[in-house]
């Protein structure tokens, strides 16, 4: 989920940079030196997981998992997503350095929202409540991201309205699948290593 270089207008890029700086600031404050290895290696895991392509009907989509990341890392999702996107900008040139701020906001804001709304659910002991929390977090991650991409494009120019609509619509099936995967994944973690769900505190 990202927007390439050279597309967005200056006000949108600046707004993205300022907002992401604020989020990263909060995230870094929450991340004590002790937590750096946890956050870092979990970020590597999510980076590798995003290579997985999941069949969606006739086509395929790669996993984003920002909702799940939010449940695990809370505000630290901001620095985590920033380093992942920087590496992508550096190595694959997907997105880039001027749009780094906007792209971080696009992915990390829904992650933090998912954390605030649904981590109380995933902390409970009832298995179906935990799964529901994961499902809603997965949905929020993608829906929020798609919405923010559309918003950034439309704020740049009204000519982008069609592209924004297409992006929103194509993300609908991905949203459901991410929800299902996040639900199963949270359930799995709860059984195997419940302390991972507490890293974000």
């Amino acid at each position, binding site marked *: 989920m990202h927007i390439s270089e050279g597309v967005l207008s200056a006000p949108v890029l600046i707004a993205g940079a300022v907002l992401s700086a604020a989020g990263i600031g909060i995230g870094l404050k929450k991340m004590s030196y002790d937590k750096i290895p946890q956050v870092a290696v979990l970020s590597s895991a999510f980076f590798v997981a995003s290579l997985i392509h*999941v069949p969606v009907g006739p086509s395929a989509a790669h996993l984003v998992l920002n909702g799940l990341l939010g449940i695990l890392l809370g505000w630290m999702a901001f620095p985590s997503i920033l380093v992942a996107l920087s590496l992508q900008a550096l190595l694959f040139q997907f997105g880039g350095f001027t749009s780094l701020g906007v792209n971080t906001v696009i992915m990390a804001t829904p992650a933090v929202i998912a954390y605030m709304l649904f981590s109380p659910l995933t902390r409970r002991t009832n298995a179906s409540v935990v799964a529901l929390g994961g499902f809603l977090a997965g949905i929020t991650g993608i829906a929020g991201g798609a919405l923010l991409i559309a918003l950034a494009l439309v704020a740049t120019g009204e000519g982008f309205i069609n592209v924004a609509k297409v992006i929103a619509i194509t993300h609908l099936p991905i949203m459901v699948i991410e929800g299902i995967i996040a639900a199963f994944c949270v359930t799995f973690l709860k059984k195997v290593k419940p302390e991972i769900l507490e890293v974000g505190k």
Partner: protein
Amino acid sequence: MHLEEFAEGTSFFHRLDPRVKFISLMPYVIVVALMQNPVYPAIALLFSFLMIAVARINTKKLLNRLAAVNIFILLLWVFLPFGFPGEAVLRMGPLTASREGIIFALSVTLKANAIVLATIAILGTSEVFSLAHALVHLKVPNKLVYLFFFFYRYISVLHEEYTTLRRAISVRAFRAKSDLHTYKTYAYLVGMLIVRSYDHSQRIYNAMLCRGFTGRFPIITHFHMHTRDYLFLILMTVTTLILGILAYNGR
């Protein structure tokens, strides 16, 4: 998983000081990203190509990268020309492509490619770890640099874990389909990766405690500025200034 495809080499760019690379690339990229009409992005694209040539980048690998980048751009070409209000130049059924829309799509394409090529030539020719080291000198918060350092270091480790898990799944005759079983399998795969990463992080933490980590990494290699670094910095600054002045006054 080989990530640093362009970092090996002995060209002018491979030998530049990573600190200079960041300081000279950032203004250039920002100036190019904010250009409006397509003439100056075209000049920037030529300049970026020139840098690619000097850096002696492998053409085949470069084309692969460019193809990946331009897929998103292609989506813009499908929709942008028809969304912009302006002088109609092409009619297809109910759709009208406007001149302004086409010019905008062209400008985005040129800018994106100019930026990508410059990034590959300048940053792609350094190892990721020396770039991270440079970020410490450029006053990026320490925590962020360490986060990046460990994150990058463990990607290859987790990718190996991922390949192992993947093999275990295919040995059990798994075929990906659009069904719940597939999604469940992938979810557990991701879950297992997360558990493994958590275990790795505990070991790193313990190792840090053993070595008395106090929030600083000792580094044995240090950067030195050479004449070529000053020359490149001046060249990039002048180019960026000229491009900026031309592009923002010449609208």
